[in-house]
């Protein structure tokens, strides 16, 4: 039983991590594509249109990867988490089915039209199709976050005697206080990733001295979008989410902040330290007193419950992983703000394109927003443990009753092998597209 839960969780974690590499780019990138296309309609400068079309190619590759790795996510609810699906399908089935109907059809239909239809439709309609792709991909985020928000903070339900969750109030799923902050935070984080990708490709072209005009446009746009989104992702949206966790999941909050012992006169904020689960303390800790109480409650002396206040069964089962995920996300987010602020300042002073070390830094920064996005999701999901539906349905009660661990290990190994191949091919394709560049071909 134990190893069964372990393999089920590992397979889900592995496949969702790989999957979320792609949508986190497409959601944010669609916004930038709409921006480029809109600018082109206003100023008629060809390089803006090239940029929109170039990034739609990158988008299309990522979209394909998102589709083929996304179908296994939907299937796994049934294959590996059958009991969870049976008990909660009446509720989260609503939001997942709506995702299929309202976002995938929109996204896939208009993506094809954007790519093939520019000449057929004319410029204004082309912008409109781009906008609809953006709308579809953000709607997808909305419905997934609505699903996740219900698991984090269940609302609008009733539990029957046989343990089934039954929908009692449909609109509550969308007015869930967990949803809006989580959605905004997630979408802005996606804009951070795509801005960094755009900026990084721009820096690459400038450094390589190839397609420099486009490179400068990419870098400029990426830096501006990147600065704005990396600020907004922390304040107000990240802050808002942290307050939600403190309010609704205090045990998770204590674990992710690394508070082992409750302090009466205000909680410190931990910057660095390694959780020592045997002695129940942080090793090599660097912390600033009272800041956490102030950030969370605007009260320097407010008491915040530490992990000592909770039963073991209520605490997340992997405190160190949760703690690290959260701190990596926050740490990287802070670095992003700093680098983008510097780059934006130099852009304003018209020096950015000549400062090589910064260009190199921006170019190689590209994996880190992905890591920040993923660790953000790990924080949410590890913090929800040991529950699937917070406080109501334990993770161990959600797995498929008939599937043996040998079968899950087999499929997990298969996914690992297949996704390594997919990842490799993805890099080849994206590399080829970047190498060909955005410049319109001369016929």
């Amino acid at each position, binding site marked *: 039983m134990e190893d069964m839960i372990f393999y089920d969780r590992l397979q889900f974690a592995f496949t969702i991590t790989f999957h979320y590499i792609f949508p986190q780019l497409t959601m944010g990138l669609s916004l930038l594509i709409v921006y480029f296309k809109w600018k082109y309609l206003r100023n008629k400068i060809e390089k803006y249109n090239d940029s929109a079309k170039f990034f739609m*190619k990158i988008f*299309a*590759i990522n*979209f*394909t990867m998102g*589709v*083929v790795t996304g*179908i*296994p996510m*939907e*299937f796994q*609810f*049934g*294959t590996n988490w*059958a009991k969870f*699906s*049976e*008990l909660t*399908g*009446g*509720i989260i*089935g*609503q939001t*997942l*089915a*709506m995702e*299929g*109907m*309202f976002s*995938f*059809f*929109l996204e*896939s*239909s208009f993506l*094809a*039209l954007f*790519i*093939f*239809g520019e000449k*057929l*439709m004319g410029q204004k309609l082309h912008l409109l199709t781009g906008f609809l792709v953006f709308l579809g991909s953000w709607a997808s985020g909305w419905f997934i976050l609505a699903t996740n928000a219900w698991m984090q903070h269940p609302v609008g339900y009733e539990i029957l005697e046989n343990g089934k969750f*039954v*929908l*009692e109030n*449909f609109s509550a799923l969308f007015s869930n206080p967990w949803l809006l902050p989580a959605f905004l935070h997630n979408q802005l984080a996606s804009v951070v990733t795509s801005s960094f990708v755009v900026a990084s490709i721009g820096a690459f072209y400038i450094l390589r001295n190839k397609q420099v005009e486009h490179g400068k446009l990419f870098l400029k746009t990426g830096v501006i979008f990147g600065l704005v989104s990396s600020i907004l992702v922390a304040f107000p949206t990240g802050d808002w989410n942290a307050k939600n966790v403190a309010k609704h999941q205090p045990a998770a909050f204590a674990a992710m902040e690394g508070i082992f012992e409750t302090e009466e006169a205000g909680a410190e904020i931990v910057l660095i330290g390694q959780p020592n689960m045997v002695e129940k303390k942080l090793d090599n800790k660097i912390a600033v007193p009272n800041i956490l109480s102030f950030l969370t409650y605007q009260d320097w002396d407010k008491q915040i419950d530490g992990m000592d206040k909770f039963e073991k069964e209520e605490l997340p089962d992997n405190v160190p992983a949760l703690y690290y995920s959260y701190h990596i996300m926050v740490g990287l987010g802070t670095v992003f703000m700093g680098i983008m602020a510097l780059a934006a300042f130099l852009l304003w002073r018209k020096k950015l394109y000549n400062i090589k070390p910064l260009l190199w830094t921006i170019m190689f920064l590209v994996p880190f927003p992905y890591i920040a996005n993923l660790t953000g999701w790990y924080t949410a999901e590890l913090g929800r443990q040991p529950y699937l539906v917070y406080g109501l349905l334990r993770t161990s009660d959600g797995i*498929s*009753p*008939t*599937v*043996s661990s040998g*079968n899950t290990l*087999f*499929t997990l190994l*298969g996914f690992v092998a*297949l996704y390594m191949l*997919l990842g490799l*091919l993805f890099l*080849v*394709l994206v590399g*080829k597209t970047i190498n060909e560049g955005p410049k319109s071909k001369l016929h």
Partner: protein
Amino acid sequence: MEIFWYISIAVVLTVFFILDGYDFGTGIIHLFFAKTEKDKEVIAKSAGLFWDSNEVWLVAAGGMLFMAFPTFYASVFSGFYLPLILVLWLIIFRAIGLELRSQFKFQMWKDIWDTSFGVSSLLLALFFGIALGNIVRGVNLGGFDNGISVHEGHYFFLPLWDGSFSPLSEHPGVIDWFTIIIGLIAVVTLAIHGANWIILKTNSSINTKLKGVIFKLNIVLAVLTVFSLVVWQVVNPNSLDNFGDKPYLLIFPLIYLSGLVGLFFIKKIKKDSHAFVLSSLLIVGGITSSLASLFPIILPSVNDTHEPLTIYNTAASEYGLSVAIYWGILGFLLILIYMIIQKRLMKGKVDNMDYGH
């Protein structure tokens, strides 16, 4: 309410098999009949331009099934664990085959991805047919053995096969001689459908030859159909009772029959789109007849201890199903609008369409 969602999901699934069905069929034809590079390219393109928007229908069907019949979703997806995961892997191989073949110019690269596309299309068609065979045959609900149930009555787990390969065994596996026959029917049907799609959407040099292929495959299909009806009686003697009780259900087998008969005149049919409609009728008729023969059951039990799964004992709550009708209808209308726009803009042959790479 259950019936509304049952029909909606059946419609979405059928649309999926008509649309993605032609890509599967295109892959099968590609594997066996495309010889020159020009044909290979244009045939792969006729699937490659559309597969992802077609596959959205599968995702939609999955989502709706999850919402409306969660118990069925949970039972079937965990019970058919291995075959479903294999289907996922095949879907991935097929997709990358289509997307990658024209990325590099050298022949070996193209051959690899062509094979990936063709073989996974063939296996997917076979697997989907086998899945349908499993649904009409039924499974050992509750894992019943010697008077003891090892699972709750609405759960089961199927091995890929059991030693006897017989549908009459107490624990039939996913693959037995009955489900293989249904699998072959699916392969032949989708090959015909794919060939019609190629004729409709391309100017490939094998279009004329394909009409002959369709004619021959149609003979095979007719034989297999009759044969499967006979063995179905052996597997499940009550399989046709529903049609006797409710004669109006006979419309579904008639749809199938009209497609089958019509396709014998393939060489005389002037408009290619008419032939495509006929093979679509095969798919519509085949799926709906199978579902109608079971209704309101959606998964029969091969033991007498546990009740079959029906649309009533697996459905979500009344409130959930009725509130979903509002957004469901809105969603269907929107999808219809997108499809009309897309079909108008992407009509005609694909030979000269820019692949976007």
